[in-house]
């Protein structure tokens, strides 16, 4: 197992190298530069700015310097917001996105698993149909509709929760629900499917025959087999939740990395884009690895393979 994990980690290095290289050159190929503005800067100012950010050097040299910086965890200064370095920005913003993603995941798991199990216990009942219809709606409504809708109901009409911001626990509820809703719906449908299949298996019949309580049968035996598709989905889902929060961050004014990432792309903030891509790549790869390890733990057949 340890060898497997180590091997996977070793694979990270060439992949990250490729990602940095591609991003580094791709962003510089895009039309428009970081210093293009509505008020055009004079050639003298532009020259000085480029010198400050070492853009007057040949491209290969900039690339080598950037790479050597990355090794030292120095991602350079932000072009657009020079008050902070890219590393500072990421250290400030990433925890917020991770926190938001974690709450959303928690919400998605609680609601998704709960609804999925309930629906699977009574297939084709009213409960099942209403849970699955709600899930379908959850999948279909995009965050930019759900977010403002929730804000309207719970913040402006009912005045229960704040409309935007990230200061207190109350601020975190609506963004987490908005971000997690779609995933909750997926998980509900997956859990239902997985559970229905598991509950019709022989080992469940055996468990029942042993005289176990229904709760034990469902939660210990049925669920463990039934949530395997959910666990496989969890890696990409977690990555998606933690990296895909741009819309939610914008709607609720959450100071996360997602917004920073998208803005930096619009602003041609070269160092910020590359830095954010790097962090996201590490995040996605780590989460996928975690999900693989967990699958092995749940299913002995995968482990032996």
């Amino acid at each position, binding site marked *: 197992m340890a060898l497997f994990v180590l091997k996977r980690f070793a694979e990270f290095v060439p992949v990250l190298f490729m990602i940095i290289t591609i991003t580094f050159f791709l962003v510089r190929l*895009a039309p428009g530069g970081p210093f293009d*503005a509505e008020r*055009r800067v*004079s050639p003298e100012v532009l020259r000085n700015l480029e010198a400050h950010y070492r853009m007057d050097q040949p491209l290969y040299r900039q690339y080598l310097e950037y790479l050597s910086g990355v090794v030292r965890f120095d991602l350079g200064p932000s072009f657009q917001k020079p008050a902070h370095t890219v590393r500072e920005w990421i250290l400030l913003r990433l925890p917020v996105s991770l926190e938001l993603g974690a709450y959303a995941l928690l919400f998605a798991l609680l609601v998704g698993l709960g609804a999925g199990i309930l629906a699977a216990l009574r297939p084709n009942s009213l409960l099942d149909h209403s849970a699955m219809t709600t899930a379908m709606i959850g999948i279909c409504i995009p965050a930019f509709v759900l977010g403002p809708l929730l804000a309207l109901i719970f913040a402006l009409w009912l005045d229960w929760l704040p*409309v935007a911001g990230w200061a207190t626990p109350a601020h975190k509820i609506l963004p987490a629900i908005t971000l997690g809703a779609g995933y909750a719906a997926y998980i509900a449908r997956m859990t239902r499917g997985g559970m229905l299949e598991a509950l019709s298996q022989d080992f469940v019949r055996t468990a029942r025959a042993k005289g176990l309580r229904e709760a034990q049968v469902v939660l210990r035996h049925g669920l463990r087999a039934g949530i395997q598709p959910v666990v496989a989905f969890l890696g990409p889902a977690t990555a998606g939740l933690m990296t895909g929060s741009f819309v939610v961050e*914008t709607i609720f004014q959450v100071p996360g990395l997602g917004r920073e990432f998208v803005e930096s792309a619009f602003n041609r903030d070269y160092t910020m884009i590359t830095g954010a891509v790097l962090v996201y790549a590490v995040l996605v790869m780590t989460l996928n690895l975690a999900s693989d390890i967990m699958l092995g733990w749940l299913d002995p057949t995968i482990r032996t393979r």
Partner: protein
Amino acid sequence: MHFFRKTMWRICSVVLCVGSVIACSSGRQIPDNVLQVGNGAEVQELDPHVVSGVSEHRILSALFEGLTDYAPETLEPVPAVAKSWDLSPDQLTYTFHLREDAEWSNGDPVTAHDFAYGWHRILSPAMGSEYAYLLYCLQNARAYHEGDITDFDKVGVRVLDDHTLEVVLEHPTPYFLTMHNHYAWFPVHQATIEAHGAMDTRGTRWTRPGNLVGNGPFVLTAWRPNEVISVRRNPHYWDAEAVRLEGIDFHPIDNHQTEERSFRSGLLHITSTIPLHRVDVYRQERPEVLNLQPYYGTYFYRLNVTRPPFDDQRVRKAFALAVNRQELADHVLTGDEQAATHFVPPGVGYEPIHRVTFDVEKARALLAEAGYPDGDGLPRVEILYNTSEAHRTIAEAIQHMWREYLNVDARLFNQDWKVYLSSMNNLDYHVARSGWIGDIADPINFLECFQTGLGNNRTGWSSPEFDALIEAAYNERDADKRLQYMQQAEALLLDGGPIIPIYFYTWIFLKAPELHGLTPNILGYIRWKDLYLEGE
């Protein structure tokens, strides 16, 4: 099943308990007497010599103060750090007398040296400051900034003593005193800057809370990027007694809808703008919070004169005449925008002598004269705009007008902001949406853009006559004559020149009834020390 019912009950009660605890602890209370401001995009920096935006200006004018300020009501210069000033008869030398009681937020006195140091800093080539050009009215400032001279002593700034500053100008500059509330002119605290790096280094830590030393009515206490920037009363400010707010929290909210919802839920006292589709709702339901003010900016189309068909002056004229601006203002624009028949916005004592009217007959005749009767044979025309709903709507309306009045099928073309800027800079367009907002309250700020070969020209247009008029305006001592030169220059720009003016901007924002002391003005300037919260 009994088990599940029980479990569900347990889960529900836990959720309810946690929910009520969170709801009770929800930090909705706004600190007493602290103004909550929606401030648009997150600031780039809080260094007055690095930044270039409007949201930065808002915050920096709370943290710093220049030699003079202007009264929001009259836009006339009033004393700030300088208590008085003299102007030499040749209008080239100002002598500023600084007040003795002006202090930095750490208690150090604000002296003439601090201003000279600040101006030296922004003009240093290595700073790469975008707004350094505002100081080009100082003698030799341009030469120093462009590296032609390296001795700052040659630049027209002389410290006569701690409280007397002499400024020598390159040419008479009637608007000189009104420029000093722009951050480019703010003084900086030398010891603070140099404790964190060299004078001309960008992005050092001197602007962090705790480090930043300012001389304005407020002092920086918190900066959480993308969350909030807080400033609180500066007890060392010379006019601290006049400051009525305890502090200001600037919230960087770049999404207009989010900002409007925050205002509605009482989290903001004033917004930076308002979503356009909400203007009518506010007009009908809460007119008392809606503010629509003329703003010193023009929305216009640029024409690329290096490409057919706009290399022909008659075609440019025809296209400009075939825009029904009034109809656009009445039916397409929602915020009381004024139709623009000229380029320099009205409102600072300037009247144009030439206007672009709406005249279909004349437009058709001109187009025919240029060899395109009824639009026949006209090369393809594209309207370029940066991706935005509002720009698209306006472009569609104009596309419709040109089709109807000139029988020309213009195509719409949108690009992401930076790509659009790059297309404009490379003259890779036919017609491009543009805007210009005055940095200073003087027509010259609009007109000088279109001098030959300047970076902001972006049309390829060149007129020696126009250049000569701008140069004459620069050097003219007589105010009336100067105005006439500018009027003539604007007439040239409008009569088949490279632009089609469309409308004058408005400053649209929401303001809570309990906020008092704000005098809306054409420059969108808010003097924070005048504001106070009372009632509700």
